[in-house]
């Protein structure tokens, strides 16, 4: 599975979880909203950045082989 797909899954899973938390008790979003969303989006950022880095190094490696 691509890392950007895992990133999207992390955001979707937390999105659904946060709405379910809200339905159960809206006040809980004050405790879980900020840290939960920050953690999910930071993880997504690092996964996407890592994927981009790997793609670049793979493209660089292929370029070297052609030469």
């Amino acid at each position, binding site marked *: 599975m691509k890392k950007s797909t895992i990133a999207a899954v992390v955001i979707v899973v937390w999105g659904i979880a946060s709405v379910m938390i809200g339905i159960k008790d809206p006040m809980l979003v*004050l405790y879980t909203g900020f840290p939960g*969303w*920050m953690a999910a989006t930071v993880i997504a950022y690092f996964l*996407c*950045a890592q994927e981009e880095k790997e793609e670049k190094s793979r493209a660089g490696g292929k370029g070297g082989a052609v030469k």
Partner: protein
Amino acid sequence: MIPKVIAIVYLIALLGVGFMYKAGVKTRLDYYVAGRKLTPLVLGLSFATAVTGVWSYIGAPGSGYAYGVPEFASFAAWIPGVAIVAFIWAPRVRKKAAELGTTSFTGFIRDAHGGGYALTALISIVTMAAYVLTFVAALKGLGVMFSPVLGVSYVPALLICGVVIIVYSLMGGLRAVVFTDIVGLGFMCIAFGVTVWLILSQGGIGAVAARINDFNPELLHPPTGAPYGATMAGIWISFLVMYVFYQALPHYWHYYISLGETTNKGAAIFTLVATASVCMVPFFIFVGMAGHVLLPGVLEDADTVMPMIFQAYTNPVVFGLFSIGVFTAIMTTFDGSLLATTACVDELFLPLYEKHGQTEAQKLRWGRSIMVVLWAVAVIWAVTSPPALMVQLLVLGWVGLSAVVAGPTLCYFIKAGTKWGAFFAILVSLIVLVVLSVRGLLGWIEQAFVALAVSIAVYYIASAIERKVSPAS
């Protein structure tokens, strides 16, 4: 005195921003979409401020004060919508807009559907009608909020703020709008810091919640989802669906078509910065609810709860910064939507420009003239009407607008419809929304939800009929 000095320095700095970007504006592409070169980071910061804007400071705490916890649903549902936009829709909209060479929301829908003048006129007029109310509400907000800060009455305060906004928007176009939005985010962070300090100084979330519960348990445990819907679970789910489509609002769409080349990493940065700012909003809502126990008496206008709390609990410097924050919040809502609406209305006159062989510089001048006319209409309306904030109606109007255009915007990327499919989707869903609103049927978010479903259904049904009648469509 200190808030007044801070306000005057800030207004002068805004004019400086306009001058700074003036030289870079040579064409309509530069003016309306900043040459389509905005980076995901810049766009995310600006989008976040435009998205939360006046709602975060004024509307959301006001709703918390008036209705309690239901407003939390709007915050929580917003972020998944932002993430979907960043990863899926914004890159696609950007790519298609670059292919079509469009510089407006109207132009995008028209060109993507191969539509003609009827579609251009409908989208431009609906957008203009919805946003003129936004401009009036924003100008009224500026007049009411800045009258005490500047030490002048309502009308001069409105005119001073309004003139500053139109001058820097006319000079710098989208670049000036985006830059001032990002500055606004800085002030929002200050307001967030003060809000957290205020909650902690009152004993923390638990202690404040206990006091709110003692005052009125229904604020924390409402029996229904009023004013948005019948049940709490219903509004959480409705908001979640609605906010995915809410991202198709014309002035948000305008940001997507202004985006430069982007990648998944860019989308993640966009989501991260936009999410960070939206996450501040629940704390503002909570403080709004706490207004009942932090302020004496009952407020006539719930939208004034945040300014009243900041005035009562902070020193003049912090209150001055907060006032500037309110100004930037209203301003970011106003300038971005004014520019996006101008771009839409400008499309109405494109055939005339072509007919009379207008040069690029002349077209740009006409565009700026349209902006001045829209601004002037809003100023006259705001000056002659009694001052009131109307923030919640403004946001709800946008929810309705995003529902009406849902078919030909985001659904276009799932399966493209035809020009008459797009035309009738907007027209029929608009009629349904107006009828539901006038007759007072269903809750506000539920009305928009119905209009959304109608827009999508009519988009595909009318498109299928058009293809059957005219297979070349």
